[in-house]
């Protein structure tokens, strides 16, 4: 394969659009989950006002149609004496790195056709997980810039809190997966997912969380807590604690710009859930069924014989399609878990938040790295 044909370029474009759309759709769906789940948790009826022809579809019109339309028609307020360009740039700088950070995540086994192998991953970087972290570290600029250009003390305090929190928790975020990387010996997310197939002890799925049994559960807890802190939501929502700081770094934002910050927050939830699934819960792997080598014979099924249609052409797609659904379900479960935690726990105090990171989680993460590396070295791993 020496030249790049137009089909290859179309495949890449399709994958790029798919990954972007999936992130955005999941983020949008999350807003609905958030409002409905909060209503259920607080024992009240959630968003149910907007309806089309009497159907409100459990409030989905409220969150996915009425709210964005309302935001679109709101006044785009810019404080006086503030650079219009910088004020508009901040939400985009906050959202853009998060939306492209899922480019390296594999969402299914490769589809093998006669002429080409299509990997279900947008870019196969050999530094996969580092790329996600790099994009995560860029997301700080959005909040910092938003607080700065608002010319508002509350905004500046919010963005200072946000950046201190994000930079602190990035350390535990990164340290918690070093053990996992030592176990798998690679940074490539595709390889990490491939290595999580099969079973351990005969019944447990061979997922990252069960590797070196109790150690990686600690790593998972630290990773998940850090990921939640990175999303800046309760119990870590100090940057926007409305009882002290009005709304934190987006106090001076309204309309679609505010909605962009909101979207970024929900996209961060999706990214956090995806990372947890890929690193600790086997990505698209389904336990007890190997989706990468599944060999269905749809041409000989009862359905195929009944309709007298040859479903055999679908054979190469069955494994990847099931895998993508498995992946989506896992990601959604972790999104819902984050929403439940957000509406269950009260907010930390700021000193508690920083103490939790530097005095509790960082030492545990460091010890975990040393112990895991010791076990990897003695077990003659990589």
């Amino acid at each position: 394969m020496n030249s790049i044909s137009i089909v290859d370029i179309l495949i890449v474009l399709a994958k790029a659009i798919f990954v972007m759309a999936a992130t955005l759709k999941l983020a949008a769906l999350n807003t609905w989950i958030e409002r409905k789940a909060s209503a259920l948790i607080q024992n009240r009826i959630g968003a149910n006002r907007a309806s089309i022809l009497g159907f409100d579809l459990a409030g989905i019109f409220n969150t996915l149609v009425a709210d964005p339309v309302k935001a679109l028609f709101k006044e785009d307020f810019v404080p006086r004496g503030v650079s219009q360009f910088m004020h508009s740039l901040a939400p985009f700088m906050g959202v853009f790195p998060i939306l492209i950070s899922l480019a390296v995540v594999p969402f299914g086994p490769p589809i093998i056709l006669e002429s080409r192998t299509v990997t279900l991953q947008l870019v196969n970087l050999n530094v996969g997980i580092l790329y996600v972290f790099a994009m995560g570290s860029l997301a700080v600029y959005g909040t910092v810039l938003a607080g700065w250009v608002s010319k508002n003390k509350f905004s500046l305090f919010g963005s200072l809190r946000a950046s201190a929190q994000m930079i602190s928790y990035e350390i535990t975020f990164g340290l918690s997966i070093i053990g996992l990387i030592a176990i798998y010996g690679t940074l490539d997310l595709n390889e990490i997912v491939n290595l999580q197939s099969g079973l351990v002890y005969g019944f447990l799925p061979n997922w990252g969380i069960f590797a070196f049994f109790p150690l990686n559960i600690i790593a998972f807890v630290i990773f998940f807590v850090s990921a939640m802190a990175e999303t800046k939501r309760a119990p870590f929502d100090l940057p926007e604690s409305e009882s002290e700081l009005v709304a934190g770094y987006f106090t001076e934002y309204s309309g679609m710009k505010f909605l962009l910050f909101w979207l970024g927050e929900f996209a961060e939830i999706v990214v956090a859930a995806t990372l947890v699934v890929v690193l600790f819960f086997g990505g698209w792997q389904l336990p007890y069924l190997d989706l990468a080598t599944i060999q269905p014979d749809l041409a000989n099924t009862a359905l195929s014989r009944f309709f007298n249609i040859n479903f055999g052409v679908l054979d190469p797609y069955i494994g990847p399609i099931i895998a993508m659904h498995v992946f989506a379900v896992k990601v959604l479960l972790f999104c819902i878990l984050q929403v439940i935690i957000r509406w269950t726990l009260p907010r930390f105090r700021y000193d508690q938040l920083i103490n939790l990171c530097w005095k509790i989680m960082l030492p545990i993460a460091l010890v975990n790295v040393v112990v895991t590396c010791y076990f990897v070295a003695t077990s003659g791993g990589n």
Partner: protein
Amino acid sequence: MNTESLSILNIFMFILGGLSLVSGLGVVLSRKSLNSALCLVATMFLIAGQFALMRADFIATLQVMLYAGAIMILFVFVIMLLGVEKDAEKLSFSVPSYFSISFVFLFFGILFFGFRDGIITSAKSIVEGSYLDQLESTTEPINNFVTGTSSNPVLVPDLVVTPKSIGNSILVDQVVSFQAIGILLLASIVGAAFLAQTKKAPLLPGRGLKAMKEKHGSSTN
């Protein structure tokens, strides 16, 4: 791919190179220090894109993570919290500035004439696209990178930089110089901490808490 037509990689290389030049000029020319800092972030990001095009994923990612993500955020913090904006003056030329400008030109002149051959060959190879073509023709994964399709993803030739090869070269082959750089950095951190340390002002008579209380009490009475 032959050199007659520009390959996709070359086109992207030119786009990224041009944009990074523009944002680099923005760093120097913009009046507000925050704008300069943000332009520098953009420059780092675009240079990382060029590294990624040359299949140096690891260096590209580190470029974003360390320079654009970590170091520049400290720059932005310093600008925001310490208010460098107050010290920003209008661009003025004086005798020392002429001296420093000529020194800069001298420095880059020496650099250019010292590495003339190397610069000309590398510029030629970039313009003619021979480096990227070499990369493209000798490596299968470069196609894998562009199209996401590959028949043999295991094949990784020497031109492609992997985290493993970098780890081997830093922590095995060059371990002494690596540790030496580490000691150098440690020394500079200790030095910076020493320089930044401010001596506490001695408690002179009449400036202590007691004196202040007495003064305060006397003024109210």
